[in-house]
């Protein structure tokens, strides 16, 4: 009975490494418009295949096609483009500010702007996101002031978080943006708890959890799916698959499952995959999932297929682990260009208008930056006090902290 063959250890590897030629030809990309749009109360078992496909709306010609098209008005689309352009411009300025030593750390969204910007539009006031560090579009599309974001990034005297948090770890209850943790995955299950609370109170608010491809491996991901499945929590569980987790390609987290969306199948949770670089598709799927949650139909798992064009963070240099030109070979293109082209095809936009908007946005970002820098940057100008460091550990400062503050002489 014993097999004499000896076992072999298998470690998944990306197709190419630095020096090789990027090749995404094995990534199946369905035609735009080809994936059905089921009713929101569909039986999850009837749509299992959707976990292995990709919902797309914008075709190569820049047209919006198929059953998922048409969820946004012309004005909303133009505004959406502005949001993405603003996020990109913001990122560029803040990357530069970090290089100039104005802050310690930054993380950009290059290539992934559509995901958070379009998702935000599907929410209502009172809904709550539990974001990772790569969804600042939720704030920008939600109208959160750029200056406040910068104040946080600079840890300056006007920082709404009093210098306590790492740059970009924003928090705004009013803007439906839960305090970012920094520990991967932890907030996915908290989103489920928040949604459960809304159901317990018979309210109508829903939650959205966010997680990266790499972080789906974390235990909190499982906990979130278990609790969401059991209590049918009104939550949208978003996986942003940008192909990389720092230096680790998505195959290490995904293993033999084919897709990340497929993880939902074992929980009876509808699982959709969507072109994350297609603003229209992201919005349409978000709207579908949000509607399900709001109608008491329970959780939805959504995988956004996108690509992290930039470095992981300002501490990272991707040329050490992937070909420099990989992002250019990425088959789903650039979300800003794709929406821009769509608007041009529709006659709602032009190259000139785009350039002009770009310049306007840059002005806005620069003037916000100037405003923020009046309040200081990490190592210069106004900064939160050492006193602030002792506040807020508890609602009321206990005696031992008061003694320590005294000892610190602040």
């Amino acid at each position, binding site marked *: 009975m014993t097999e004499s063959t000896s076992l072999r250890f298998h470690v998944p590897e990306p197709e190419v490494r630095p020096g090789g030629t990027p090749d995404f030809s094995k990534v199946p990309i369905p035609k735009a418009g080809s994936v059905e749009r089921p009713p929101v109360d569909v039986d999850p078992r009837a749509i299992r295949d959707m976990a292995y496909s990709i919902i797309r709306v914008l075709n190569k010609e820049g047209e919006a096609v198929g059953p998922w098209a048409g969820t946004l008005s012309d004005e909303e689309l133009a505004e959406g483009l502005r949001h993405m352009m603003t996020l990109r411009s913001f990122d560029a300025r803040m990357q530069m500010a970090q290089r100039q030593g104005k802050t310690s750390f930054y993380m950009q969204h290059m290539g992934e702007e559509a995901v958070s910007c379009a998702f935000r539009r599907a929410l209502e006031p009172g809904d709550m996101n539990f974001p990772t560090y790569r969804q600042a579009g939720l704030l920008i599309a939600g109208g959160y002031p750029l200056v406040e974001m910068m104040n946080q990034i600079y840890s300056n005297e006007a920082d709404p978080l009093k210098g*306590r948090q790492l740059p970009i*770890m924003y928090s705004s209850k009013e803007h439906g943006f839960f*305090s970012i943790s920094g520990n991967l995955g932890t907030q996915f299950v908290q989103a489920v*708890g928040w949604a459960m609370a809304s159901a317990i109170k018979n309210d109508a608010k829903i939650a959205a959890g966010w997680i990266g491809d790499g972080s789906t491996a974390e*235990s909190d991901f499982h906990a979130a799916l278990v609790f969401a499945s059991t209590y049918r929590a009104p939550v949208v569980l978003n996986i942003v698959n940008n192909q990389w987790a720092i230096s680790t390609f998505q195959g290490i987290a995904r293993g033999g499952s084919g897709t990340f969306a497929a993880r939902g199948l074992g929980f009876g949770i509808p699982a959709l995959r969507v072109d994350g670089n297609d603003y229209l598709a992201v919005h349409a799927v978000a709207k579908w999932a949000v509607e399900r949650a709001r109608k008491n139909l329970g959780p939805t798992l959504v995988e956004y297929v996108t690509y992290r064009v930039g470095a992981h963070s300002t501490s990272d240099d991707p040329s050490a682990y992937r070909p420099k030109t990989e992002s250019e070979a990425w088959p789903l293109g650039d979300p800003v260009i794709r929406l821009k082209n769509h608007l041009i095809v529709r006659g709602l936009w032009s190259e000139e208008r785009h350039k002009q908007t770009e310049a306007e946005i840059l002005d806005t970002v620069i003037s916000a930056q100037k405003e923020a820098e009046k309040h200081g940057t990490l190592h210069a100008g106004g900064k939160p006090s050492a006193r602030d460091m002792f506040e807020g550990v508890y609602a009321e400062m*206990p*005696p*031992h902290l008061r003694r320590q503050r005294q000892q610190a002489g602040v």
Partner: protein
Amino acid sequence: MPRMTMIEAIRGAMDVSMERDDNVVVFGEDVGYFGGVFRCTQGLQQKYGKSRCFDAPINELGIVGTAIGMAAYGLKPCVEIQFADYVYPAYDQIVSEAARLRYRSNGGFTCPIVIRMPTGGGIFGGQTHSQSPEALFTHVSGLKVVVPSNPHDAKGLLISAIEDPDPVIFLEPKRLYNGPFDGHHDRPVTAWSKHELGEVPEGHFTVPLGKAVVRKPGADLTILAYGTMVYVAEAAAAETGIDAEIIDLRTLLPLDLDTIVASVKKTGRCVVVHEATLTSGFGAELAALVQENCFFHLEAPVARVAGWDTPYPHAQEWDYFPGPARVGRALTETMEA
């Protein structure tokens, strides 16, 4: 005043809190229909419905993680971890999330949760039903850590904990659920119905967090204890005849240092006792604080009596448990030093 067990007192605290505040919800493994393996939540689902008291999947991370989300929403979850020995899967959610949420969001989000769990040994529960992990929480800024030693305090402290705006770790010495236990496993145990601390006010009342209490005044030596060890200390003092002042800390974090310092300055000697393993136990913090604050009043080193630095054994439970004989020896040695 009615007399009741600690289980009834704990149940009463949740009952009162759920009655007064719709936002209080209770969940955990087996706590719903069944009412918990120690029956602390018995009847709550029947009274308040399945939305307020319900069974959770066996995932401590998920229990605490969802509770944090609920608390951010505005609820006041009071969750049960079936045994303190099983809290570690939730440790990241407690340490990285619950404890720091207020701080890192500058008060934008807060986390008023209570995490209840039976703790301590003396029931032949072996390695996985006997641990006392309090020191793993007292090192975490942002948490409060409470250990009641009797039905009266258990109810009053638990109500305070539920009403507290910050996360509270609430450790229930399971050996005390049905009666005070003086460490003499070979003698019959008194029931709470025969003990004055089994007298518990009906309805709402609180015992404040952060306040210790002198259980027995004394002149010769101060014993710092909490939970089961309060009674072991009483027995040891009685048996040695040493006039010890016994302080029941009740809350470990934040600690009532003033009460401790006042007592040790008076007695000049101090013995710390706990069930948890010695090294880096909470007794280390107590000894460090006492010598820092009372150095010139001390006649002898602060002694610690604690569980040995081994996993909690099954057969050798009574060799492991810091009973009256071991505590008594430390009292005598400290008096003689």
